[in-house]
C-alpha cells in the first residue's frame, strides 16, 4: 500500500487566546482531490497555512509521502513539493505575471536569465494545462481569475506535487470555475495530490474524492464523497439542517423605482466602462446582473452608489439623481433611499479597524437617529447594533469587536444589517455571499427575498450564476459595458446565460 501524500497528526494551533486548530489529524492519498469544508472561521485556512509553513503549529507532526517532515517556513514546504493558492492571493500587485512567478524561485542572481528561462517554461505550462496568461501584464491590471491562474502557475513552476487551493472559486465565473476543475482533474491524472477548500458543496460533490469537515477548530468527519450528499455535509458543517434552495414566491412587481437610461461611465484612464446602459428595476422585484467580472458591473454599482461619475439619466422614484458633482456622493444617494451593499466589504463596506457598532452607522452617521447636531449619539448606535446583531445572528454578538476580527460571513452580515434595516426603496447589492459559508448564505438569501417581499426594488450583482438564478425575478447579462439581454430565470438556463456572458447571441 502506498503511503499517504500528506499526513497530519495532532496539529494544534492557537492565535493568542483563539484556538484555531485543535488536535487535527488527516491523511490524503496521492493522486486524489481532497475537499475541506467548514464554516467561516472553522480553521481551514489555518490548517493549510501550517502545512505550507506560513504558520508554525504549536503541536503535531507532518508526514509527506510517509516521511516525517519539518516545515518551519514556506521554503521547506516548497522543497517538500507543496504549493498553495491562498484565499487572499499573495501577489505583488505592481509586478508582472512573470516576476511574480519567479519570485523566490529565480535561477541565479541575474533577473533577466531567470525571466528568460521562466518565460519558456511558462509557455510549456500554459500549453499543457490551458493556463494562458500574458506574462508581461501587471497583476493589478488583470482580473482575479487571471490572478488565480498566476497563483496556480506559481505552484506548478515550483514543481509542486501537492497543491492546496483555499476557496479558489469564490472569485470565479462558472466558466472559469469549470476550467479550473478541468485543470485540477488533469493534475490528478498526473498523480498530483490536491486539497481543495470551498464553501460550495456542488463543487465538493463534483470533483473531490474524499471530503473532510471542520467545525470550530476540530476535524469532525472525513468521508468518501461518493458515499455522502450535500444535505448531509451541510448538516455536518453547521450542526443543523440547512435549506440549500431559496424558497420564494413569485414576484409582484410594482412601479418603476430605478430607471437607467443611456448610462455611460469613463474611468480614470479614459476607458469607457459603461457604454449606454438601459435598465429598469421595479418595486418588489430582484433584478440580477450576471456577467464575467470586469464587464462593467462594478462600475454600474459604483456610479449608482455615488462614487464614480457618469453621464446619462438615472431616475429613482421618477426623479433624476445627479451623476456628477457635489450631490453625486454616497450621502446624497442614501438620502434618496438607495442602500448599497458593496462588492468588496473589506475595502468599501466596512472600516476594518472600526468596531462593529461604529460600522453599523457607517454612511448613515449623520442621520438624526445616530446624531444630533455635530455630535454622534453613540449610545443609540450601540443599542441599535446590539439589536441588529441579534436579528442578523452575527457571531460573536459583540458590538465592541473590531470588524477585522469577524469572519467574512459575519462581516457581510454586519453590512447587510446596516443596509437592509434602513428600509431603502432600492437596494444595490454586489456579491452578497462571496466567501461566506453555507449557513450564512442561507440566511443572507432569506433576507434579500424578505426585503423584496416588502415591495422594495433590488439590483443584485453576482458572479455566481447559481445565486443569480435562485434569487432574481429578472436577469440581465452584462458584457463589455453593454447589457446583452434580459431573461426570466424560469425561461433560461446556465448555458444560455453563459453564452450571453461571453458576448455571444442577443
Amino acid at each position, binding site marked *: 500500500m502506498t503511503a499517504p501524500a500528506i499526513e497530519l497528526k495532532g496539529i494544534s494551533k492557537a492565535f493568542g487566546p483563539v484556538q484555531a486548530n485543535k488536535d487535527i489529524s488527516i491523511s490524503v492519498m496521492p493522486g486524489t482531490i481532497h475537499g475541506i469544508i467548514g464554516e467561516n472561521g472553522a480553521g481551514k485556512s489555518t490548517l493549510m497555512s501550517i502545512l505550507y509553513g506560513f504558520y508554525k503549529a504549536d503541536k503535531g507532526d507532518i508526514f509527506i509521502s510517509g516521511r516525517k517532515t519539518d516545515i518551519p517556513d514556506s521554503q521547506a514546504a516548497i522543497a517538500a513539493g507543496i504549493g498553495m493558492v491562498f484565499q487572499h492571493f499573495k501577489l505583488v500587485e505592481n509586478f508582472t505575471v512573470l516576476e511574480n512567478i519567479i519570485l523566490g524561485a529565480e535561477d541565479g542572481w541575474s533577473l533577466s536569465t531567470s525571466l528568460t528561462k521562466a518565460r519558456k517554461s511558462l509557455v510549456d505550462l500554459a500549453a499543457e494545462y490551458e493556463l494562458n496568461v500574458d506574462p508581461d501584464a501587471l497583476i493589478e491590471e488583470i482580473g482575479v481569475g487571471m490572478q488565480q491562474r498566476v497563483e496556480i502557475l506559481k505552484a506548478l513552476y515550483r514543481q509542486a506535487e501537492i497543491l492546496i487551493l483555499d476557496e479558489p472559486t469564490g472569485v470565479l465565473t462558472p466558466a472559469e470555475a469549470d476550467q479550473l476543475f478541468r485543470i485540477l482533474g488533469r493534475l490528478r491524472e498526473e498523480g498530483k495530490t490536491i486539497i481543495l477548500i470551498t464553501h460550495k458543496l456542488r463543487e465538493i460533490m463534483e470533483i473531490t474524492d474524499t471530503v473532510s469537515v471542520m467545525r470550530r477548530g476540530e476535524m469532525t468527519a472525513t468521508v468518501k464523497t461518493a458515499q455522502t450528499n450535500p444535505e448531509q455535509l451541510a448538516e455536518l458543517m453547521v450542526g443543523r439542517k440547512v435549506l440549500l434552495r431559496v424558497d420564494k414566491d413569485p414576484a409582484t412587481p410594482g412601479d418603476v423605482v430605478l430607471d437607467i437610461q443611456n448610462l455611460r461611465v469613463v474611468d480614470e484612464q479614459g476607458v469607457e466602462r459603461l457604454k449606454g446602459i438601459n435598465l429598469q428595476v421595479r418595486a418588489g422585484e430582484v433584478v440580477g446582473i450576471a456577467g464575467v467580472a470586469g464587464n462593467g458591473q462594478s462600475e454600474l454599482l459604483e456610479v449608482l452608489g455615488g462614487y464614480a461619475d457618469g453621464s446619462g439619466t438615472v431616475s429613482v422614484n421618477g426623479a433624476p439623481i445627479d451623476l456628477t458633482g457635489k450631490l453625486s456622493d454616497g450621502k446624497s444617494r442614501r438620502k434618496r433611499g438607495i442602500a448599497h451593499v458593496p462588492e468588496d466589504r473589506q475595502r468599501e463596506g*466596512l472600516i476594518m479597524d472600526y468596531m462593529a457598532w461604529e460600522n453599523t452607522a457607517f454612511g448613515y452617521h449623520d442621520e438624526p437617529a445616530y*446624531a444630533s447636531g455635530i455630535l454622534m449619539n*453613540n449610545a443609540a448606535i450601540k443599542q441599535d447594533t446590539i439589536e441588529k446583531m441579534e436579528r442578523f445572528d452575527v457571531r460573536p454578538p459583540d458590538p465592541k469587536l473590531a470588524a477585522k476580527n469577524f469572519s467574512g460571513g459575519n462581516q457581510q452580515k454586519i453590512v447587510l444589517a446596516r443596509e437592509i434595516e434602513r428600509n431603502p426603496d432600492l437596494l444595490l447589492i454586489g456579491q452578497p455571499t462571496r466567501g461566506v459559508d453555507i449557513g450564512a448564505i442561507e440566511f443572507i438569501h432569506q433576507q434579500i427575498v424578505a426585503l423584496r417581499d416588502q415591495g422594495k426594488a433590488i439590483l443584485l450583482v453576482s458572479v455566481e450564476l447559481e445565486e443569480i438564478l435562485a434569487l432574481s425575478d429578472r436577469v440581465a447579462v452584462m458584457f463589455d459595458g453593454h447589457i446583452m439581454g434580459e431573461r426570466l430565470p424560469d425561461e433560461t438556463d446556465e448555458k444560455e446565460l453563459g453564452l450571453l456572458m461571453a458576448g455571444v447571441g442577443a
Partner: protein
Amino acid sequence: MDVMPKWAEVVLVPLISLLLAAIISCLVILAIGEDPVAAVKLMVSGALGSTYGWGYTLYYATNFMFTGLAVAVAFHARLFNIGGEGQAMLGGLGVALACLYIPWPHWSFALLGAAVMAGAFGAVWAAVPAYLQAKRGSHIVITTIMFNFIAAALLNYMLVNQLRPKGSMDPASARFSETVHLPSLHEILAPIGINFSKAAPANISLIVAILACLALWVLIWRTKLGYEIRAYGHSESAAKYAGISPVKITMIAMIISGALAGMMAINNVMGEAERLVLNSTEGAGFIGIAVALMGRSHPVGVFIAAILFGFLYQGGAELALWTSIPRELIVVIQALVILFTGALDNMVRMPLERIFLALRRRDV
C-alpha cells in the same frame, strides 16, 4: 480578545519601557563620568519636587500638548503633518500682531483674540499644503517640511526688518503691553489658597491646552466630523463609498491641525516671553511628532506624553544648572525615552503577553 488586561497595556508596558530607558540613560551618565543617582534625583526634584519645578514642567508640557494634538489630529486622517514647527511660528506671528496692534481692554479678550489669530495663522500655513495634497497630490510630508523653512524665513523677515523696535539689536518684537499679560498659575491659584511659585512661566494657556485635549477628544470620538476623519484615515476607499469627501477631510483635518500648532503661541509668545522672538518655537513642533506618536494619537496619551517631555525638559534644565553635565546628554535621554516607549515597546509587550497568556491558560 485581548491577551493582556487593559491595565497592563496602558500602565505596565509604558512603565517598564520607561524603566529600561532610564537604566540605559544611567549607563550613559556613568560612562561620561557622572553620578546617575544624583542626576536622577536632581531631575525629579527639580521638575516635580516643587511648584516651581512643576511650573516649568507644565509650561513646556503646554507647548507639547498643542503641537502633539496638532500632529495627532492629522494622523487620524492619515496625514503626516511635519509642519507643526512652521505653523507654530506663524501662530506666534499672529499672536504678536494681535497683541501689539490691538488695544485690548482686558487680558481675557486678548487671550481670545490672540488664540483666534494664532489659530488662523497656523491654519493658513497648514491649509496650503493640505490643498496641494488634496487637489494636486503633492505629498504633504514634503510640502510641510518646505513650509517650515519658508516660515522661518518669513519670521526672520518680520522680526529683523519689520517688528523689531528701533535701537534694539535683538531680533524680537517689542514687549506686549501689561494689559495682555496672561495670568500665571501663581496668579490663578492664589485666590483659592494655593501658593504656586511666582517665577514659573506656566500660565492660563495650560488650561486652554487641557481644554484643547478635551475638545479634541470630543471631536475625534464623539462628533460626526471626527468619525469621518477617522474613517478616512483608516480607509480612503471605504470613505468614498460612504460619501465622505477626501478633499474636505484633508482640508479640515489639516486646518484643525495647523490651528492647534499655531495656538501653541499663546503659551510661549503671549504667556511666557510676552514678545515674539526669532527662535520661539525651539523645535516644539518636532517634539509634537514624538508626543503624538507616543500618545498613540489619543488626547489622553498626548497629555501624558507632553507632561513626560515637559519633565525631561525641566529636569534637563536643572541638570544643566547644577551640574556640569552637557546639555547633549539630555537630548540622549530624550532619545532613549522615545526609542523605548515609542518604538521598542513590543520588546516589552511580547514577553508580557506570553506571561499573561500562560497565566490565563493555567486559570482555565
